[in-house]
């Protein structure tokens, strides 16, 4: 439902702005240009998405995800203390983080939901616990090894080294995850239960 409002607002805003700036002609031609650009974008993304979901499946089957989650165990135990007594929760938590890390959005969400449901058993009356809040913040900060979609857009626009943004992306997502979790921890201390 939210998207319906956003879409309508975007159209209304452009119409309003076109009247103010007197760019009616550009607005009219933008309609068909935009639709065309949508198809062009999907076609230019298709190859990369196809390749990287293939690589993602390979990594999952070959046990890369499992190896990563063993590495993450100590860190996750600190962030989510209840995962220490609950091996199943620890499993879905690390699978969630690893899938996000490897850019497997489709695999990350079901694992994250499983973790959220197990964490929710410890909460009362549908009130989010500190650990649940932390899980969401960790997921919204998206620490990703290969941002394949963005790189595909860049190369479709003629960029010769689409992956040169990797270091910047890594630093950025580590900072935002770190600060997000810290902020959650501080607000969690101050927030009344």
């Amino acid at each position, binding site marked *: 439902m939210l998207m319906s409002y956003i879409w309508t607002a975007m159209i209304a805003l452009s119409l309003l702005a076109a009247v103010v700036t007197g760019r009616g002609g550009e607005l009219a031609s933008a309609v068909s240009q935009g*639709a065309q650009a949508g198809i062009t974008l999907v076609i230019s993304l298709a190859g990369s998405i196809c390749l990287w979901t293939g690589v993602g499946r390979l990594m999952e*089957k070959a046990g890369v995800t499992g190896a990563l989650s063993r590495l993450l165990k100590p860190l996750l135990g600190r962030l989510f203390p209840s995962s220490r007594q609950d091996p199943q929760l620890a499993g879905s938590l690390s699978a969630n983080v690893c899938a996000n890390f490897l850019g497997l959005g489709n695999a990350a969400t079901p694992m994250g*939901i499983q973790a*959220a449901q197990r964490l929710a058993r410890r909460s009362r009356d549908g009130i989010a616990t500190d650990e649940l809040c932390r899980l969401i913040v960790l997921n919204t900060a998206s620490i990703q090894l290969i941002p394949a979609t963005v790189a595909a*857009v860049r190369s479709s626009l*003629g960029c010769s080294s689409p992956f040169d943004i990797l270091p910047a992306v890594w630093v950025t997502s580590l900072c935002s995850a770190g600060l997000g979790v810290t902020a959650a921890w501080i607000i969690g201390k101050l927030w009344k239960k």
Partner: protein
Amino acid sequence: MEKITDYIVPLLLLGCSAWALRKKENTYEQLLQGGQEGLKLVISLIPTLVMLLTAVTMLRASGAMELIGSFLAPAFRFFGIPEETALLVLIRPISGSAALAVGTELMAEHGVNSLVGRTAAVMLGSTETTFYTISVYFGAAGIKKTRYTLPAALIADFTGFFIASLTVRLFF
């Protein structure tokens, strides 16, 4: 910097295939099956991206994007975030495909290797659709009172936008 980053992706491809072979997986078959899933995802993306790029192109052509940008410019300038990315920053936490559409438009308009184009790419690569994540996870877990989740997640998002602008300035 470019020299090193050029080799990350090919090395990753080799590493994965070699690891999978060592584990006696049918490497090629798994790649094909994954690719099949990927294509299904691509097809499901078509209508969303067509609708959203239409709306975003209209926003650009009508001058609305510049209006939003100039409205928010003082705040953006204070944090050193390029004001051209205003719409991207606003829409990123709400809709992933809308953000992809806006980001693509920005990269095409300003150039992929421009400051704005690179910042938009880093922003897209390092943040997530916050509102969607909250509603899906908490909806499935039956949580009704989200307490401080939204402010904390938005702080993480904002840090992402800020650091993205900073790293692009520093690294390039």
